[in-house]
C-alpha cells in the first residue's frame, strides 16, 4: 500500500502495519497531513492542527503500546496541553490549554498522538456544527449538508479519512447523532465511565466523552484506553474496565432486543424507518429475539433535557467572565458592564439563548415549576429504562429521525433543531450507554446520506452494545461505504 492510501486504514490495520514496522509513526502523520490538506478546504472539520508538535511526539513512540503511534483527532472542548481549546467559541478564541485532560493523558500513556482539534457547535450546544463561531463543517457525503453535531468536526474528519479516529462529547446525542449523519460509529459511554477532567463542562449531569471511529472494533480500542476511574472527576465510577473487544465475534443467540413503541414518532423519515426495520430483521436473523418494550415518558424527554441541560449550562458557563482567561470587553465602566459586554460579545446566539433559558428555569419563583419538575420527570424516564432492561438486553432505534439536513435549513427554528435529539437525549438523562452504527444510505436529491442504528445498553454494559453492533456491522457492508470527497 502506498503512503497515500494509509489514511483509509482502520485503526486495527494501521496498528498491524506500525507494529510490523511497515510504516513509521512519522509516515502515518505525514500521510494524514496530505489527506487533510486535500479534503479540509471542502469539509472544514478542524479548527487547529499542529503537525510539528505531533511529529515531534511521534518520534520514538513505542509502537507496541496499545495505541502506539496512532494519531487521534480531538474535539476542541477537550484540553490538550499547549494547543488551543476554543470550544468553538469566540470567547476562548486565544485560549491555550495549560494542561492535558485525563483522556488525553491516558491516550498519550497508551502511545497515541493527539493530532488536530475538531470543529463543534459552540460549547457543544447544537446538532449541526453550524453554531461554531469559526466555520461551518460540511458533511463529506454531501457538502451542502451538515455533518450533525455538536461533534460534527470529529465525525466529518473520520468519515473523510482525515482522521483515523476522533474523540467527541455527548450531552444529548452529540457523538451519536453526527456519527449517524456522517456514516461512522459513535459511542456515548455510560455516565461516570470516562473522566471529564479537563473537558469544558456543558451539562455536568449528562456530559460524557467517547470515540467516533470507522468501525466498532476501532471504537473498542479507544474505549479500553480512555475508560476508568479518575480521582479528579468525582462522578467517575470505580468499576473495573472490561476488555471491550471480549464479545466481538460472539453470536446473538439469546440476546433480547427491545423495540420501544414510543419511538414510532411522527416526523420519522420513511427511508430511516425502512433502514432501521431492515437492520432489526438482520439482527433477528443473527439470532436475536425481538421484544416490545414501553418507555412511556419518552415524549417528555426533550423538554426535560432542555430544562436540565440549560440550567446546568447557565451555571457552568458563569466561569466565562473575562477575568482569568478568555475574551474581555474593552474599557468597561464598571464590573457589571465588564461582565455584561464580555459575555454578550463573546458568546454566540445559541449559547446566549440557552443561558437565558437556564437562568430562567433556575430563577426564584420558577425553580420548582420548571427545574425540580424536570428532575422528577427525569427520574421517571430513568425508571422507564430500568424496567425495560428487566425484559431486554438492549434497546434499538434510529439514532436520528432524519438523515443529514441542508446547511442553514434549521438555524431559524431552535425548537426544530432541539427535536433532532429525540432518540438520543433520554439515554443521557438515564445515564446509560449507547452506540450508533451505519445501517443504510438514504437517497435524497441525488445524494446518498448515511442512516444510523442506535443500540442503547444498561449502565456499564458497553461490552454488550459493542457485541451487538459488531455482529450487525460484520453482517453488512455499510461500514465499508465511504464518501467520495
Amino acid at each position, binding site marked *: 500500500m502506498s503512503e497515500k492510501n494509509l489514511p483509509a486504514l482502520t485503526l486495527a490495520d494501521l496498528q498491524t502495519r506500525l507494529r510490523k514496522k511497515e510504516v513509521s509513526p512519522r509516515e502515518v502523520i505525514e500521510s494524514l497531513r496530505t489527506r487533510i490538506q486535500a479534503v479540509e478546504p471542502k469539509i472544514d472539520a478542524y479548527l487547529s492542527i499542529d503537525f510539528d508538535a505531533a511529529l515531534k511526539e511521534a518520534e520514538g513512540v513505542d509502537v507496541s503500546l496499545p495505541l502506539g503511534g496512532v494519531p487521534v483527532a480531538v474535539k476542541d472542548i477537550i484540553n490538550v496541553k499547549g494547543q488551543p481549546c476554543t470550544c468553538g467559541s469566540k470567547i476562548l478564541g486565544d*485560549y491555550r490549554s495549560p494542561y492535558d485532560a485525563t483522556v488525553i493523558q491516558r491516550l498519550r500513556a497508551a502511545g497515541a498522538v493527539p493530532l488536530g482539534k475538531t470543529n463543534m457547535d459552540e460549547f457543544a450546544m447544537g446538532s449541526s456544527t453550524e453554531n461554531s463561531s469559526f466555520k461551518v463543517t460540511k458533511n463529506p457525503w454531501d457538502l451542502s449538508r451538515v455533518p450533525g453535531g455538536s461533534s460534527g468536526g470529529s465525525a466529518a474528519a473520520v468519515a473523510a479519512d482525515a482522521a483515523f479516529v476522533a474523540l467527541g462529547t455527548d450531552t444529548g446525542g452529540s457523538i451519536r447523532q453526527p456519527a449517524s449523519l456522517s456514516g461512522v460509529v459513535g459511542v456515548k459511554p455510560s455516565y461516570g465511565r470516562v473522566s471529564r477532567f479537563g473537558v469544558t463542562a456543558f451539562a455536568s449531569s449528562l456530559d460524557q466523552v467517547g470515540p467516533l471511529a470507522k468501525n466498532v472494533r476501532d471504537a473498542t480500542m479507544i474505549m479500553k484506553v480512555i475508560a476508568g476511574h479518575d480521582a479528579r472527576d468525582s462522578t467517575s465510577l470505580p468499576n473495573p474496565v472490561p476488555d471491550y473487544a471480549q464479545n466481538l465475534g460472539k453470536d446473538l443467540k439469546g440476546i433480547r432486543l427491545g423495540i420501544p413503541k414510543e419511538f414510532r414518532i411522527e416526523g420519522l423519515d420513511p427511508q430511516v424507518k425502512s433502514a432501521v426495520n431492515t437492520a432489526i430483521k438482520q439482527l433477528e436473523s443473527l439470532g436475536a429475539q425481538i421484544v416490545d418494550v414501553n418507555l412511556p415518558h419518552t415524549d417528555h424527554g426533550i423538554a426535560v433535557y432542555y430544562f436540565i441541560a440549560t440550567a446546568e449550562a447557565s451555571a457552568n458557563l458563569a466561569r466565562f467572565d473575562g477575568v482569568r482567561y478568555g475574551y474581555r470587553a474593552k474599557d468597561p465602566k464598571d464590573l457589571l458592564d465588564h461582565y455584561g459586554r464580555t459575555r454578550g460579545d463573546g458568546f454566540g446566539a445559541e449559547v446566549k439563548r440557552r443561558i437565558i433559558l437556564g437562568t430562567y428555569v433556575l430563577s426564584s419563583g420558577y425553580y420548582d415549576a420548571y427545574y425540580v419538575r424536570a428532575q422528577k420527570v427525569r427520574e421517571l424516564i430513568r425508571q422507564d429504562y430500568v424496567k425495560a432492561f428487566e425484559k431486554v438486553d438492549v434497546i434499538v432505534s434510529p439514532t436520528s429521525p432524519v438523515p443529514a439536513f441542508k446547511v442553514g435549513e434549521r438555524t431559524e427554528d431552535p425548537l426544530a433543531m432541539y427535536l433532532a435529539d429525540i432518540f438520543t437525549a433520554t439515554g443521557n438523562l438515564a445515564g446509560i450507554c449507547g452506540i450508533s452504527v451505519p445501517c443504510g444510505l438514504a437517497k435524497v436529491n441525488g445524494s446518498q446520506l448515511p442512516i444510523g442504528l442506535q443500540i442503547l445498553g444498561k449502565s456499564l454494559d458497553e461490552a454488550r452494545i459493542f457485541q451487538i453492533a459488531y455482529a450487525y456491522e460484520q453482517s453488512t457492508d455499510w461500514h465499508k461505504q465511504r464518501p467520495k470527497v
Partner: protein
Amino acid sequence: MATELDVEYVSKLARLNLSPQETKLFQKQLADVLKYAEKLSEVDVTHVEASAHAVPIFNVFRKDEPGKCFTAEEALANAPQKANQLFIVTKVVE
C-alpha cells in the same frame, strides 16, 4: 405554566448583555420552547423524588495529598490583562 419569561430581566440576572434585536428574537423563540415544554405539567410527579444525577454516588472523597499545581506563570498564561504576576481586574470598590 403560563409563559412569564421576561428575557430582558433574565439577561440582567445572567450578566449577559443582549441587543434589542436579540432580546426580541429570544423572547419569541423561548416562548415557543416553553410552550412545547408545557406538557411536562401533565405528568403526575406526586411521589417522585427529583433526580440530579442518573448514577447515585455520594460523598466522594480522595486522600488530601499535596500534588503538582500550576506555577503563577502557567496560571496567568491566558490572562486577558496581567502585571507583576497578578491578574488585573476591573475595579470592584470605589
